[in-house]
C-alpha cells in the first residue's frame, strides 16, 4: 500500500514537473536577468550602475566606487554598460557621475547616460511602466525611480515606475542572390521564347519569412529600367526580353527584410538578337524588281515571286530551312526563293525559317492583287 502511494506521488510529482517546465517554456525564458545586490556583480553579470541604497537612493556610474549597491545584469550573452555604438540602448540618465539624481532617458536634462550594450547578436529595448509585464513577457525590471526627472532610484520594489528592458535577437541582414533559368543567362530580343527567369535565391539568417520584399531593376535597360516587384516577397523575375534590344544588361536584385535592412546583388545577362524573318515580293523574280511586300500588289492568275531576306540569330551563321505558305497552304519548302500563281484579291504569304542554331522565325505579308489584262472572246456578230 505504501509502495502504491509512493508510485502515485512520484507520478504526480513528475507530471507537475513536466507541466511546470512546459509552462516556463511557453511563457518564454527571459534572456536578461537583473538584480540589485550589495556585493559586486559576478561574471558574466555586468555592473550597470551603483546606488546608495535599495530605496530613496542616489546613483553613480559603474566606474565609480562610492556606493555599495550594484545593479547587476546578465544573460546567456556578453553584456556591457558602454554607451555610444550602434548596439547599445540607453536605460536612464544621471545628473553626474556620482551622487546623482536620475531621469528618464531622452528628457535631455542630464548628460550622464547609463546603457546596456551587447557586441553580440542581441540588442536591448528599454522603457518604463508600472509593471514590466505590461510591456511584454520578456521585459525584466532593472530598478525603479521616484519621478520622471530629478528622481531617486531604488530596487524594483521601491517605486511604481519601473525601468524595464528586454533583450531581443539582433536583426541579421538578408543575403541577396539569384540564378538564371537558362544556362548562360541569355534571352532573345523581342521575344519571350524562351522566357529567361531570374530565380530569387535570397536568404535571411533570421528565416526566409523575414524577407519583406524583393525588387528587380535592369540598371542599363532604358525604358525597361523600371523597378519590378512581384506579389511575393521572394519573387523571381521574368526578364522582359520582348521589350529589350540586344546587348548586355546588368540586373540588380535588392532584398529588404522586415527590419528594413537590405542587400543587393547585380549580375549581367545577355540579350541576343534573334532570327529576323522577312521576304520580298516581285512580279518577275528578276534582279532589281523586288519590293517590300507591304507595298506590293500581285496580279490575279499571274505568278508572284518571293525572295527570303531573313537574317540568322546571334549564335547562328545561316538560314537552314524555309517553308512558304499562301493562305495557310504550303506551296514551297527548303528553297530561299519561291513563286506561286495567285488567284484571290487578297493573299497572305507566310515564310517560316530556321537557322543553324535552331531558332525559328516567321514573316507574314498580306497583299492585294490587280486584275489581269482584260480579255474577251468574240462569240458572234
Amino acid at each position, binding site marked *: 500500500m505504501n509502495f502504491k502511494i509512493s508510485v502515485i506521488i512520484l507520478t504526480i510529482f513528475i507530471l507537475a514537473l513536466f507541466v511546470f517546465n512546459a509552462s516556463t517554456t511557453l511563457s518564454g525564458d527571459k534572456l536578461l536577468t537583473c538584480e540589485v545586490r550589495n556585493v559586486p556583480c559576478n561574471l558574466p553579470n555586468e555592473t550597470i550602475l551603483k546606488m546608495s541604497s535599495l530605496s530613496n537612493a542616489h546613483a553613480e556610474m559603474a566606474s565609480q566606487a562610492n556606493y555599495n549597491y550594484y545593479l547587476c545584469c546578465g544573460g546567456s550573452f556578453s553584456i556591457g554598460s558602454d554607451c555610444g555604438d550602434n548596439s547599445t540602448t540607453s536605460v536612464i540618465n544621471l545628473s553626474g557621475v556620482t551622487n546623482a539624481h536620475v531621469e528618464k532617458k531622452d528628457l535631455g536634462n542630464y548628460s550622464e547616460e547609463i546603457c546596456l550594450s551587447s557586441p553580440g547578436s542581441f540588442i536591448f529595448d528599454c522603457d518604463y511602466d508600472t509593471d514590466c509585464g505590461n510591456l511584454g513577457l520578456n521585459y525584466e525590471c532593472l530598478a525603479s525611480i521616484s519621478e520622471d526627472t530629478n528622481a531617486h532610484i531604488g530596487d524594483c520594489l521601491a517605486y511604481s515606475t519601473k525601468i524595464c528592458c528586454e533583450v531581443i535577437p539582433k536583426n541579421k541582414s538578408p543575403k541577396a542572390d539569384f540564378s538564371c533559368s537558362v544556362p548562360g543567362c541569355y534571352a532573345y530580343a523581342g521575344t519571350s521564347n524562351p522566357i529567361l527567369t531570374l530565380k530569387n535565391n535570397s536568404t535571411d539568417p533570421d528565416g526566409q519569412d523575414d524577407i519583406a520584399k524583393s525588387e528587380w531593376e535592369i540598371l542599363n535597360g532604358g525604358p525597361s529600367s523600371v523597378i519590378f516587384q512581384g506579389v511575393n516577397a521572394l519573387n523571381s523575375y521574368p526578364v522582359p526580353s520582348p521589350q529589350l534590344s540586344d546587348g548586355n544588361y546588368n540586373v540588380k536584385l535588392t532584398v529588404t527584410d522586415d527590419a528594413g535592412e537590405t542587400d543587393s546583388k547585380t549580375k549581367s545577362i545577355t540579350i541576343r538578337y534573334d532570327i529576323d524573318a522577312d521576304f520580298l515580293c516581285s512580279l518577275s523574280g528578276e534582279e532589281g524588281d523586288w519590293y517590300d511586300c507591304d507595298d506590293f500588289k500581285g496580279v490575279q492568275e499571274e505568278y508572284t515571286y518571293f525572295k527570303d531576306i531573313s537574317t540568322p540569330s546571334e549564335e547562328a551563321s545561316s538560314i537552314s530551312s524555309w517553308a512558304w505558305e499562301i493562305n495557310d497552304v504550303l506551296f514551297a519548302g527548303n528553297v530561299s526563293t519561291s513563286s506561286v500563281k495567285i*488567284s*484571290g484579291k487578297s493573299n497572305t504569304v507566310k515564310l517560316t525559317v530556321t537557322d543553324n542554331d535552331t531558332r525559328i522565325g516567321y514573316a507574314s505579308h498580306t497583299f492585294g*492583287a490587280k*486584275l489581269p*489584262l*482584260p*480579255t474577251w472572246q*468574240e462569240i458572234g*456578230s
Partner: protein
Amino acid sequence: MEIFKTFKSPKDFLIVIILIVFAGIVFWQMGDRFYHLLPQEVLIITKEPVYGSNDTLSLAIKNILPGKICFSSCYPYYLEIKNAEKWKTYEYYENCPHPDLIESCIDPGYARFFSIDLPSISPGLHRIRVPVTVDENTGEEFREDKFYHSNEFIIR
C-alpha cells in the same frame, strides 16, 4: 436682168436677200438640232443582270454612231464597281506585253457579241466601261476618243 425689174427699188432687193439669209440660218439650226436628236450611241448590254465572281459574262455591243468604233488590244474594257455612290475602276495589271493597237472594230449599225471570264472581284454593283477609237482602222495605234458604259449588273 429682168428679175431686177420686178423690184421697184434696190431697197426691195436688199430686203429679199436678208430674208433669204435669215431663212437659211433658221433651216440650218433646225437641221443641226434634229440631227443631234437622232440616236448616236453605243449600246453595251450584258446578257444577265446578276453574275458570280469568276463566272463567264456575255456582252453585246451595238454601234449606233455614224462612224465605226474600234477597241484596244490591251484594255478593250474595264470593270467598274460602285462604292459609296461612286464608280471606281478596278486596278489592272499595267504591263501589256505588246503595243496597244486597234484589234477589232464595229461598223455603224452593226453589233458584236463577246464573252468575258470574270476575275475574282468583290460582290456589289458593277458596270463595264469600253474605251473606243472612232473612225480608225485595225492595226493602227489605239487612242481613247470616247468611252461607253454597259448597263449595271450585280456580282453576288
